[in-house]
């Protein structure tokens, strides 16, 4: 599967899409495949302050519980409520309808520390 090249990626297999001062974050298709069928998501609260590479939520597959690590720091302005009832969107459309949260960026330069699609592809090869 070709990776979207407008995103940046973290070693913890999260992606971020920056649009102005805001960013959308989610988990990569690689992460979703590794986890298997995702059956539960614990989302951050709107207003919560996220630290770069700090935990901000939990995903559970049938077998396993995994922390979510935010690829950037900032304040949560919106979460994907649809995931509460349809966590399987993380498997079926991880870069689209399976987005997790939107964040007001604290420091836009943090994105520079993340990988581009080519580097992330190499990381997960």
């Amino acid at each position: 599967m070709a990776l979207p090249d407008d995103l940046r990626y973290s070693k913890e297999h999260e992606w971020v899409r920056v649009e102005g001062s805001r960013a959308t974050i989610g988990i990569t298709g690689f992460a979703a495949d590794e986890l298997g069928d995702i059956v539960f998501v614990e989302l951050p609260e709107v207003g919560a302050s996220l630290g770069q590479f700090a935990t901000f939520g939990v995903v559970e597959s049938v077998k396993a519980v995994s922390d979510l690590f935010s690829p950037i720091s900032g304040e949560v302005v919106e979460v994907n409520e649809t995931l509460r009832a349809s966590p399987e969107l993380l498997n079926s459309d991880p870069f689209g309808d399976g987005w997790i949260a939107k964040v007001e960026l604290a420091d836009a330069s943090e994105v520079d520390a993340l990988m581009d699609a080519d580097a992330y592809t190499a990381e997960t090869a």
Partner: protein
Amino acid sequence: MTQAAGPRRTPLTDLHRELGARLMPFAGYEMPIQYASILEEHRTVRSAVGLFDLSHMGEIEIDGPEAVAFLRHAVASDPGALGVGQAQYSMLCQDDGGIIDDLIIYRLSDERFWVVCNASNREAVVAQLNELLVRGDFDVSLDDRSDRTALVAPQGPNAAALVAELTDVDLDVIGNYRSAHGAVAGIDCLVARTGYTGEDGFELFCDADRARELWEALTAAGQSHGLRPCGLGARDTLRLEAGMPLYGNELDRDTNPFEVNLGRVVKLEKGDFVGRAALEAIALAGPARKLIGLQMLEHAIPRAGYEVRADGAAVGEVTSGTLSPTLGEKIAMALVPAALSDIGNAFDVVVRERPYRAEQVKLPFYKRPRD
């Protein structure tokens, strides 16, 4: 063949890899956890037929004139009550009543039995049986056939129709917990109507070197029955819905059969056997703890090891938990003080340091529809 360091392999490990399975270490073996999706595999077993490789399990043959006397002495159940071709769920207990392993015992002839045990406990079971055999000077032989024996299990409502296509054995006479010898796809098998999924199904034991042939014949014939290969991930959610204990989760050496609602396995009336005095005392006094079913009333998934509270106080632990694929409910089994066990009782399960409400429900969570 010598075993290189690293995980053990079943005769089907290469085939699983060819099928794209995700292999993970389990009980010292490299086993398929899932092929594509645990949820899909789970549903396949509930609605059609799933095919499992269980070749990691242990098969120990007990043969000889004193086979009945020996097994009656060694295990908590009464294998002497079995007719030839019958099987029973059993347990090997310590002197204090703690469970060394749970077993299925098959009577193959008057003097010949198979004891099928968990892969993780095979060495312990063989050691215990050997020690009892020598100490009691029983006239039987013990043969650990595990490495030479493969176990392939078609499980689900379509399993009988599938196996019937490949065998001349009359499956109608092999009822639940019965077995017969016969050829399946031309391969000599012990055909047993046993399983660990809560569905109808078979466990087919054959020589390890015929396992691939058997698997491929079942897979080919299974296409028209909706067959999918299934991994141990689905096996775990299936057995949990069916309220079946898993050694290492619900069962261990610090747990006795009465605590896990399996007192019916223990046949005190058969005479002396290993663990009898302790088990009789527990039967009289009642077990201190009890394995219960929990259903979550809030949105959190209980998992093994999570704390269980009653009225705010820690009282026990979840032994197994998951989101039930069949019921859509978050379910768990937990060990709690027996005095707290009653259907409808309120508990909390602590998930990531926060208590979530749960209600005690009847076990099993799922019972297959029978006609």
